[in-house]
């Protein structure tokens, strides 16, 4: 299993008032599957992702990443995990407007690799998501669809085990949405990683292997499904795969 949330609860304090954003949420993401969580504005989607990616700690419950309890992890180990194993696709783009996308996507690799090698992997990541032509472009010049794909390349370049994307289909038309969601699904299946996304729009969920809806801090799954294990087929000797 790639990621498992077990009865996770999370609250925020606004002045004297405590608001519970997640209530006893259980959810798992396996390698090879794309899990999509839908919710209305303010339903707790982004908090769910932050907790899943180890960026925020829950008040109660357990978050396990590859069987390791994130709650019991040292700060250093958690930072290493976030840097190497969990890809968070940020849609805000680079800090500098001057940066070409080839270098922006290469940035996460520069600590451990030469610029030349990092650029080569960056070019491969951009080609993998279908925007090789953007490598010389700058963030401001890109369309919303291209920005989404470049963000995914930026998160994927270190070949993480878990890819986390908050609303990957924002501002996209139907055709762009199909392309991005098809990419996320095929990435999960072919690169054998877990993909967890949140969406405010239900049509974006149609390519996901598993889905759920979040409201009032609680996660609901389809009739007959379980948030932790459902309709995922076990293949002897080959791990797990979601059925078609």
């Amino acid at each position, binding site marked *: 299993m790639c990621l498992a949330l077990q009865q996770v609860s999370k609250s925020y304090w606004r002045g004297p008032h405590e608001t519970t954003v997640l209530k006893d949420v259980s959810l798992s993401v396996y390698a090879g599957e794309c899990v999509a969580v*839908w919710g209305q504005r303010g339903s707790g989607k982004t908090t769910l992702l932050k907790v899943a990616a180890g960026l925020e700690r829950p008040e109660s419950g357990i978050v396990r990443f590859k069987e390791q309890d994130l709650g019991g992890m040292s700060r250093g180990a958690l930072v290493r995990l976030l840097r190497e194993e969990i890809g968070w696709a940020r849609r805000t783009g680079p800090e500098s407007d001057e940066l070409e996308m080839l270098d922006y996507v290469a940035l996460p690799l520069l600590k451990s690799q030469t610029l030349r090698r990092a650029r080569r992997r960056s070019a491969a990541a951009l080609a993998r998501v279908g925007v090789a032509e953007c490598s010389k472009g700058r963030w401001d010049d890109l369309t919303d669809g291209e920005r989404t794909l470049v963000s995914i390349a930026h998160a994927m370049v270190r070949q993480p085990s878990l890819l986390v994307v908050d609303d990957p289909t924002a501002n996209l038309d139907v055709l762009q949405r199909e392309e991005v969601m098809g990419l996320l699904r095929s990435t999960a299946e072919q690169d054998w990683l877990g993909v967890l996304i949140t969406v405010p729009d239900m049509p974006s969920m149609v390519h996901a292997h598993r*889905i759920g809806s979040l409201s009032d801090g609680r996660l609901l799954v*389809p009739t007959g499904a379980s948030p932790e294990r459902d309709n995922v087929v076990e293949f002897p000797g080959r791990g797990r795969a979601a059925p078609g």
Partner: protein
Amino acid sequence: MSAKNAVLGLVIERPGYGYDLARRLEERFGSSGFAPTGVYSALDQLSSDELVRSAGSRADAANERAAPRTIYEATPKGIDHFEEWMVGGSSLAPVRDELYMKIALSRPHNLSRLIELARTQEQDCLARLQELRQPVTRPQQGRPKAWSEVAVLLVRDAEIKQLQARVEWLQKARIIMDKLNGAQDRGAARGGEFA
């Protein structure tokens, strides 16, 4: 809405026999609630109106003793009729729902059960959405270009958006019913009355 125009449209796209048309109707409009047998009555009606006609028959390869199947094709009158329908106005679907009726006629002691019903319906909507999932195909490179592909996407989106609107309403209804139910329980604990 009867299945008549949908069946006529499918016959214009490609002639076919009853079972084939029922299968295609289910594939394209599965959630519209057309009964499979509706195809046969639609074909009878379309034939008597001379909008479709027999284009021959085909033996059942799997069962030699079965009666040959009639293949239907559209007549020129049928094509004209379909074109007229295509440019005509489209009515809004009537809003009729059993849960709405139950909520409208419910009393405070029914709230717990209504909350449960709303939760179950939301899960049913999610299950329906999961049924619409596309089969695994090769990775999508480039966008679908053909209008037929885009049209299928748009119709699927319309259906999913209806499910979404339904789920949004169910969630809001559930949250407010939860609140009132909690207030009712607290009121009962204090010996008060909630109506």
